[in-house]
């Protein structure tokens, strides 16, 4: 409940701040449709609201995918970013930027599609390693780390081969940015998060059982391999959708689950929504910070997330020294 209120507050501040330095009153009037000033309406409805909502949607998707990843791999360092899923998506996007989109697609369509496709490829590889006889969660983590290095190397190769213009575009995309948010993109990310929910609800107790280790989960009748596969599909869709439109944003997927775990525990019925909410809050706060660190300047969100999140995270961890891991 407190989390919802704080996130709502952060959303309001996010909408209220920006380089245009609009007075709070005119922003509020515009939001409720009473502004009468076309310029203010344009800024609020075409930029601020989409950016603020995108921060919530993408943050929720990253928080949820990170939480799922940490649960199915039973590892606190797991997230889409640390295990190569985001790197795969980044490589997919860079591939389109360097090689150009296929004829029947615009670059704006091809980049997100390629990002989602390669997030899926990365998850599929992790899954295939998991199907090896005797595969353990540790092997999946190692496979993810290997993928991270593989996709980073491929990305570096693309950057090495890219033209000056394409290189700049890749680098900017990798920083992560909410500024290109549109209502359509928000709808897609929001729909993906909402669409994943019913599939998660079915498996909540099975995911909780997985926290006791594979052997105990199997003993409780959980078909562990199938559960991991279902979760990996959701992780690839959530990560793909989040990364596709705003670039690679690290930290949220890693830290939001820890915040939820410390505050709410690991019953997945509250842990997963909690991680989604923590992710939304962190990215929303980062969005505010990206606009206010130097007033009038927009910092790329990917840089700011860690700057905002680390102090908050350290404070939480130091305040709760229970041995969860």
């Amino acid at each position, binding site marked *: 409940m407190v989390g919802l209120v704080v996130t709502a507050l952060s959303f309001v501040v996010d909408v209220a701040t920006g380089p245009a330095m609009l007075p709070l009153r005119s922003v509020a009037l515009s939001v409720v449709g009473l502004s009468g000033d076309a310029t203010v309406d344009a800024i609020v409805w075409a930029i601020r609201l989409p950016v603020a909502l995108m921060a919530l949607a993408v943050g929720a998707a990253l928080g949820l995918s990170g939480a799922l990843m940490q649960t199915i791999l*039973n590892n606190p360092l797991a997230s889409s970013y640390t295990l190569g899923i985001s790197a795969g998506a980044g490589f997919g996007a860079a591939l389109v930027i360097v090689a150009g989109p296929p004829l029947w697609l615009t670059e704006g369509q091809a980049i997100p599609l390629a990002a989602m496709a390669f997030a899926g490829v990365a998850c599929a590889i992790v899954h295939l390693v998991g199907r090896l006889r005797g595969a353990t969660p540790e092997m999946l983590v190692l496979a993810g780390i290997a993928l991270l290095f593989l996709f980073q190397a491929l990305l570096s190769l693309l950057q090495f081969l890219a033209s000056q213009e394409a290189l700049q575009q890749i680098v900017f995309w990798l920083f992560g940015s909410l500024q290109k948010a549109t209502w359509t993109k928000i709808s897609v990310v929001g729909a993906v998060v909402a669409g994943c929910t019913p599939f998660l609800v079915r498996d909540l*107790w099975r995911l909780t059982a997985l*926290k*006791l280790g594979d*052997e105990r989960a199997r*003993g409780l009748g959980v078909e562990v391999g199938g559960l991991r596969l279902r979760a990996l599909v959701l992780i690839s869709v959530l990560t793909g959708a989040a990364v596709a439109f705003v670039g690679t944003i690290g930290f949220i997927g890693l830290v939001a689950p820890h915040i939820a775990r410390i505050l709410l*525990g*690991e019953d997945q019925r509250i842990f997963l929504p909690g991680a989604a909410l923590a992710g939304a809050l962190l990215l929303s706060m980062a969005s505010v910070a990206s606009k206010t660190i130097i007033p009038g300047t927009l910092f790329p969100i990917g840089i700011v997330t860690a700057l905002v999140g680390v102090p908050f995270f350290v404070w939480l961890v130091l305040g709760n020294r*229970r041995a*969860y891991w």
Partner: protein
Amino acid sequence: MQDVGVRYGAVPALAAISLIALASEVLVLVGPNGSGKSSLVRSVAGIQRHDGQVGFADPQGPRPRSSVRIGYVPQDIGSRTALTVTETVLLGRIGQLGLRVSDADLDAVKAVLASLDVLHLAARHLGELSGGQRQLVFLAQALAAEPDVLLLDEPTSALDVRHQLEVLEIVRSITAERGLATVVVLHDLNAAARFADRIAVLDGGRLYGTGAPAATLTAAMLGDVFGIEAHVAVHGDGRPSVTPLRAIRGRTAA
């Protein structure tokens, strides 16, 4: 179970074991390390690929596996989690849990925690418990499933002697009360002698012998299977006790 065999790669862990566990009976599996006790229990639990057949039956005839509730407590190797004791025990009833946990499920959890004298731990995190407390919690989880078959793999390994006695007493009385078929893996031969209705001795993946404690825990068996010289005394209640004397030279531990 009939002709149950398990292989890890090319290494046979169990070879054609045939054994019956009866209702209201505590069957204790003993044997040296690597003799196949855990593989056998995992095969019955349905989480170990095996040859042969594991079947279940009641007086009316054979029962399909899906209709038999199995409570399985594996060896405790620790697990990193922030789950509470209540959440952990609730998982024993995973088949019937919904998004909202019913009062009946919560009451069942409380009752089983109380029966093991650990209700005061209900709100604690699993990571904060001692090894012995964890074992009691996982026993509670298995009992919360209201099982027909109870499989316990070294349930007393982390317990002090008083808690060992308590847990084994509880297991035996619940087995009798609820008519469970209980299979327990134990390393402690004296605990096996005291609490088993029947003992099955495994050696190198084969069944060495099965029978009442006094008939199986003999000096000859201890020499053959465990490679030790031991003094075995049979007490007034017909149960034996084992005093290990020395390892027999020339035998290598499995």
